[in-house]
């Protein structure tokens, strides 16, 4: 990206951030909470307590490894899902007979909610990191695969005529027309897949107690360490927020060649 472009881009991104005063309800809630229930409590520990608990977790060397484990699983699973999902999606989408044959099967598998795949995978693959990775990838792959194949199958029909009038080979057709044309859909699929991957990662950790934030949360809950539970909730929330926004920025950078769109979109 040229220097001028970067500046313009950042300005556009900054203009899209909702006004900071929008945080008033959240801050008001937290302040009220802190004032009404100032101390430790089994059910409603004050926000300052969450902070202390978080600091404690960090100091005791529990927080970082758990966080690292969760992030690693999430990223590896996502990368796997993207690679396989895009490759399969393009293969399926560009071949009409294949798309028709596999269509109902894919719809059927899509109807199974991702969390449900976790016990299935646990049973079939056991309690280890391979299973964890498989499950995360398997859950995240659907939006990517379906979006990609649908976009590949529905490339602007006029472009097919254009490719034929210029007598482009099939390889060039796929490489230079189909793939760029489906990039926006791929990115949309990834955007949907990210929260799925996070949820499934945490779910696996909660069900199997494999190392990670999820395991830590369940453990805290079982030990009635309520402040810790809330602290970890905030950690997870921040993680989700940051990952989503980082991806929105990546998406906007990749799509800067496409007709104008914003950086952050709600919904």
């Amino acid at each position, binding site marked *: 990206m040229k220097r001028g472009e970067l500046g313009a881009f950042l300005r556009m991104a900054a203009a899209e951030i909702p006004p900071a005063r929008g945080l008033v309800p959240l801050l008001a809630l937290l302040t009220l909470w802190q004032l009404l229930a100032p101390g430790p409590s089994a059910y409603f520990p004050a926000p300052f307590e969450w902070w202390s608990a978080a600091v404690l977790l960090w100091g005791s060397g529990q927080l970082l490894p758990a966080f690292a484990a969760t992030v690693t699983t999430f990223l590896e699973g996502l990368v796997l899902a993207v690679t396989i999902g895009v490759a399969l999606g393009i293969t399926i989408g560009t071949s009409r007979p294949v798309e028709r044959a596999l269509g109902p099967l894919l719809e059927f598998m899509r109807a199974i909610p991702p969390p*449900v795949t976790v*016990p299935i995978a*646990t049973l079939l693959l056991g309690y280890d990191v391979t299973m964890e990775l498989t499950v995360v990838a398997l859950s995240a792959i659907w939006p990517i695969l379906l979006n990609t194949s649908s976009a590949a199958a529905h490339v602007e029909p006029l472009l097919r005529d254009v490719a034929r009038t210029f007598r482009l080979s099939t390889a060039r057709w796929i490489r230079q027309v189909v793939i760029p044309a489906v990039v926006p859909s791929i990115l949309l699929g990834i955007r949907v897949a990210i929260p799925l991957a996070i*949820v499934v990662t945490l*779910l696996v950790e909660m069900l199997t107690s494999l190392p990670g934030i999820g395991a830590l949360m369940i453990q805290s809950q079982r030990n009635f360490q309520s402040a810790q539970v809330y602290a970890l909730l905030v950690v*997870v929330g921040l993680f989700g927020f940051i*990952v989503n926004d980082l991806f929105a920025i990546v998406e906007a950078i990749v799509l800067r060649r496409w007709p104008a769109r914003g950086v952050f979109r709600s*919904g």
Partner: protein
Amino acid sequence: MTARRFSGRLWWRPNIAGLLTMAACGLAWELTIQAGIFDYQYLPAPSAIIQGVGELATSGELAAATMHTLESVFLGWAIAVAAGVSLGLLLGFSPLLRRYSLATIEVLRPMPAIAFVPVALLLFGFSIQTELMVIVLPSLWPVLINTMGGVMGVHARLGEVGRTFRLSRAAMLYKVFLPAATPTILVGMRISLTLAVVLAVLAEMVGNPEGLGYGVVSQQQALRPDLMFVYVVVIGLLGLALNALLIGVVSVSFPAAAAELKGYRP
């Protein structure tokens, strides 16, 4: 199922290839297990799964679990829709309120639903409230955002039409804005419903030990894969059935909006 415009008397051609593929897969699955080629201890044959249905149905477990999940889904979804539509309307009509809440929504929305499970367990223990806490908040967002967007997206021209005819504020809301925004709101409700099913199952898997979600996990731990798959299939069917039901109800009460709803694929 693809429809081709000029391809013969049957303008809607059933996807033979697709159905055959599915049937072939099912058959292959069954045969490989029976023949013992694939001796995967925990992968049951389709026939075993069908038998499992009988087993669970007769014991009444399946019905009880399904009713429980349905109850959570409906309650959670209803609350989410009520809250989402009201808040969405408020925010849609008031730029001031929007300025003072959008950032909060942007921060809270990406929160993974599952992170609420430990908190919910802490507050409510093993009860349906735990499930509801997990279901309601994430299901609220699609409805809220779509309602807000739907209202804001009502074309300026329609507003001007209302003013030309000097409609009262209430009449504008009732006769112009709500009907115009209805299709978008309904799409939000549909997304929310699908989400509610997933969240209910999720909450039952790690939170409240009741319902279909718990059924899956408990059968997995009891090493009964055949019964586990029964629950999996029922969950899938439940999602599809509820979706179809929603479309059906909408088609009857809001025929114009139904078209857009059917076109949407979550």
